[in-house]
C-alpha cells in the first residue's frame, strides 16, 4: 500500500485518494472552437515519468497538486492550492 501526502492530513493510504485531472490544462477563454473545447475536456499528455496531477483526498475533501513519477510511482512533491 502506497502512501500519498495530503497537504492537510499528512501521509495517508492511497485508497483514500482519487485522481482528478492532469494539471496544466487551463480552461479556454472566450468562445472556444469545438476542437479547442474538446481538447480542453479530453486530451491529456499521460507522460511516462514525472507528471503533475490534481488529486482529491476523499476523506477530508482537499484538492491538491501532486508531482509523481508515473513509471516508478515515486512521489516527488505535493502542493497545497491555498
Amino acid at each position, binding site marked *: *500500500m*502506497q502512501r500519498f501526502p495530503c497537504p492537510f492530513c499528512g501521509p495517508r493510504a*492511497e*485508497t483514500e485518494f*482519487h*485522481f482528478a485531472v492532469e494539471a496544466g490544462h487551463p480552461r479556454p477563454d472566450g468562445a472556444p472552437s*469545438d*476542437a479547442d473545447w*474538446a*481538447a480542453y*475536456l*479530453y*486530451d*491529456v*499528455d*499521460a507522460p*511516462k*515519468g514525472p*507528471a503533475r*496531477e490534481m488529486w482529491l483526498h476523499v476523506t477530508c475533501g482537499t484538492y491538491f497538486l501532486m508531482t509523481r513519477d*508515473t*513509471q*516508478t*510511482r515515486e512521489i516527488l512533491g505535493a502542493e497545497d492550492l491555498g
Partner: protein
Amino acid sequence: MKYSAVTLAREALRGHRHWPEAWAKARPKAAYDAVIVGGGGHGLATAYYLAKTHGLSRVAVLEKGWIGGGNTGRNTTVIRSNYFYPESVALYDLALRLYEGLSRELNYNVMLSQRGMLIAAHTPAQMEICNRIANAMQLNGVDGRLMDAEEAAARVPLANQAADARYRLMGGIWQGRAGVARHDAVAWGYARAASRMGVDIIEGCDVQDIVVEAGRVTGVETNLGPIRTNRLGLAAAGATPGLAAKVGVRLPIHTYALQAFVSEPVKPILDTVLLYLGTGTYLSQSDKGELVIGGGLDRVPTHGQKGNLPAQEQVLSGVLEMFPSFGQLKLLRQWGGVVDVVPDSSPILGPAGPEGVFLNCGWGTGGFKAIPAGGTLLAHMLATGDHHAISRPFDLDRFRTGRLIDEAAGSGIAH
C-alpha cells in the same frame, strides 16, 4: 511449412528437431509501403490483413520488445461481444466471427473455446441492467439472453449460494458464443501467417521519432536506423500517447495498470467465463486447469507494468466471496500490463494528425477480444486511406462532435 497431421507425425519421428521458425527474424529494409508500430495482436493482425485482403506485402511490423511479450501475451484471454451500442457490437462481433474461423485460416490452432460467458447479477437492480443489455444484444442481432437464478447456479455449481452469502446468484446475461482462446497462439499465428506472405516482423526495434514532411508522414527513426514509409499505423496500446506526441497529437488516453492472476492448476471446476457484477471480478479456467482471474483497473494512473496492492486485494476478495472453496488454492503468478483508457470506454480508430498516420488504440482492458477486427480495420485504413464503415464511429472526431460511444454507461465495462 503447413502444419498438418502428416507434418506432425514426420517431425515427431525426427525428434522435433527440424521444425522451421514460425516467422522469419527480419532486419529492416530502407522503405516499406506501410509500417505498423507495435507487434502485439492488433499490429500483427493488421500486417496479415494488409497482405491477405489488400495485397500489400511490403509491410513491416516494428516491435520494441518481442512478439507475444506485451499485453497480447499477458491478458485473461476472454472473447465476447456482449456490448450495448450497435457500433460496439458491429466491432466486437466482427472480431468474434473472425476468431471463429481463425485456426483454419491461419493454419495455427488458437484454441478458441466457446464455452459461454455469464455476467452474473445478485440484486434486482443488477437484473434490470442485465435485462436491458440482453435486450440490446438481441436488437443488435447477437446471441444473448437473460438467464434465471436456477440456470445460472447450474452453470457455476461452486458459486457461493449459502443462505448468508453476500452475492447469491439471481441470474444474469448469457452469451453462448463467448469464450477464451490461447492468447500467445493468436500473436504467433498472425506473425507466422504474415511472415509467410512477405511481411517483415522486426523485433527489438524501438521507434524513436516519426518524420513528417509537408504535413505527410515520410518515415520513422528507429534504433535500427531510419525506415521510409508514407503509411504509418500506430497500434502500441499504452505506448501510443508517447508515439502520437512525436507528431504533436494529444490523445484522450489515460494509462492505467490492469492486473491479472493465475492459480495453481486443478481439475475441471468451472466450464464457463464468469463475471460477477457485485464483485467486479471475473474468472475462467484455462485448458491447463489454472484459474485465470481478472478485475477492474488500478485507481492510480501509471506506466509501470506492475499492479498495486489495493486492486489486488479487491479482485482476490471478490473471488473468495464468489467461491469460498477457492481459498485453498495457491496463486502461481500475478502480472500487470499498461492499458490505454479512453473517457467513453471505446477504442480510437482513425487518422491522426499528419496525413498517412492512423491510430488503433484506446482498447483499454479489452483489446485481446478485438484483435481480428482491429487488424481488419487498421489494414483497411492504411490500404485505402479512408475509414471502414465499422471504424468510422470510432474516429477521434467523436470527442469534438460529442457522438461518444459510452460503453461504461451502456454495458458497464471498466475500460
